[in-house]
């Protein structure tokens, strides 16, 4: 391992000047080992989230209530696969291979967003995920377009362009149900009740329990703290919930004139850590499904390699 002590001072200086100027670090630039490691962890976790994130919604592909909704959902799930691929490519520029990344996901050595460990028993969940889960992802991702690592920032720009469709289709789906029967309105409310708190947890632990944030911000990898982004998300969601006609399940949620922001209730961090550590309702199922897809695809990967080798000779 190279530490800052072993490398030429002009390399360190050049890295720090680039970061100081809010310029981008590119793959073959020298970078501190900790910077590289932090990026691999963050980008991999992000890529895995996109890939695992296909499952909760994929659950509804064959049962979408109309051809229109089915086509939309297919396009959205396909986008998430694409997001995963952009991010895996960015991560590979840091010297890890795609295969290693997939293996680390399956073995549990690397994590993905805890939100995807919740089940989607209702069709309304497809709408709620688009509105709240993609909405939270957008809040997280927009500032990452300016992250200090070039390939990561470029992947985020592509992703952000595609996310707004995801959020809008979800919100529109919920609006349609809210114009329907009492039963449909109840389905929407029940779904929002289940997803609101896990969506708030997507921003990660509170700032005073997030030991890596300061260093990540110094390196320009992160641009805002978890709590800043969470607050922004709450403030954006409240008027959207009103327009939709649903109640966000938090009796303490109210506008604070003094702060110019909404106050909200305490998040159940025990639940968050339980899900992160594998104890959520669907953790085992999600990984088992990914592993099955990977194992079942092995013969296709091998056959394509054999075909390419034969065609080349």
């Amino acid at each position: 391992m190279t530490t800052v002590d072993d490398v030429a001072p002009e390399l360190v200086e050049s890295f720090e000047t680039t970061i100081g100027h809010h310029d981008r670090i590119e793959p073959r630039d020298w970078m501190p080992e900790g910077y590289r490691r932090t990026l691999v962890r963050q980008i991999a976790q992000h890529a895995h989230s996109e890939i695992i994130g296909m499952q909760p919604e994929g659950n509804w592909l064959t049962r979408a209530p109309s051809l229109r909704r089915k086509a939309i959902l297919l396009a959205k799930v396909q986008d998430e696969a694409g997001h995963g691929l952009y991010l895996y490519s960015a991560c590979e520029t840091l010297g890890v291979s795609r295969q290693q990344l997939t293996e680390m996901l399956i073995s549990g050595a690397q994590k993905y967003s805890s939100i995807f460990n919740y089940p989607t028993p209702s069709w309304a969940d497809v709408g709620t995920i688009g509105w709240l889960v993609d909405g939270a992802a957008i809040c997280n991702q927009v500032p990452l377009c300016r992250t200090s690592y070039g390939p990561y920032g470029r992947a985020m720009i592509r992703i952000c362009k595609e996310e707004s469709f995801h959020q809008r289709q979800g919100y529109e789906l919920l609006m349609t149900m809210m114009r329907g029967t009492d039963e449909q309105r109840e389905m929407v409310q029940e779904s929002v009740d289940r997803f609101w708190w896990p969506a708030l947890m997507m921003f990660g632990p509170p700032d005073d329990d997030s030991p890596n944030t300061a260093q990540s911000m110094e390196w320009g990898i992160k641009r805002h703290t978890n709590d800043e982004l969470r607050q922004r998300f709450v403030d954006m969601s409240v008027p959207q919930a009103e327009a939709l006609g649903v109640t966000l399940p938090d009796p303490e949620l109210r506008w604070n004139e003094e702060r110019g922001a909404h106050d909200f209730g305490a998040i159940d961090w025990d639940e968050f850590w339980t899900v992160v550590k594998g104890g959520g309702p669907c953790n085992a199922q999600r990984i088992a499904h990914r592993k099955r897809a990977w194992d079942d695809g092995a013969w296709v990967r091998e056959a394509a390699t054999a075909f390419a080798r034969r065609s080349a000779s």
Partner: protein
Amino acid sequence: MSEVRAEPPQAQWPLYEVFVRGKRGLNHVHVGSLHAADDQMALRHARDVYTRRNEGVSIWVVRSADITASSPDEKDPLFAPSGDKVYRHPTFYDIPADVPHM
């Protein structure tokens, strides 16, 4: 070429760099990379991964291993020769403001 990197140790599909012409009249621009078993598969995957919304009218794919790259360092001596040749820029020449069409 920023995305160029060494082939990883595992036997996996090789890496390709993808270039897309956004519309007629524009250059092909590097958009990202992907893995594929061969050139034809790389093209097909590039279409699915990088042009799902009419982002292109033409795609080039090239094996990353076939790209020769300069060092990305801004102080690279490779770019030094152009540094002191200011006379290559139109602004180097003083022309009176009242001379038309210049």
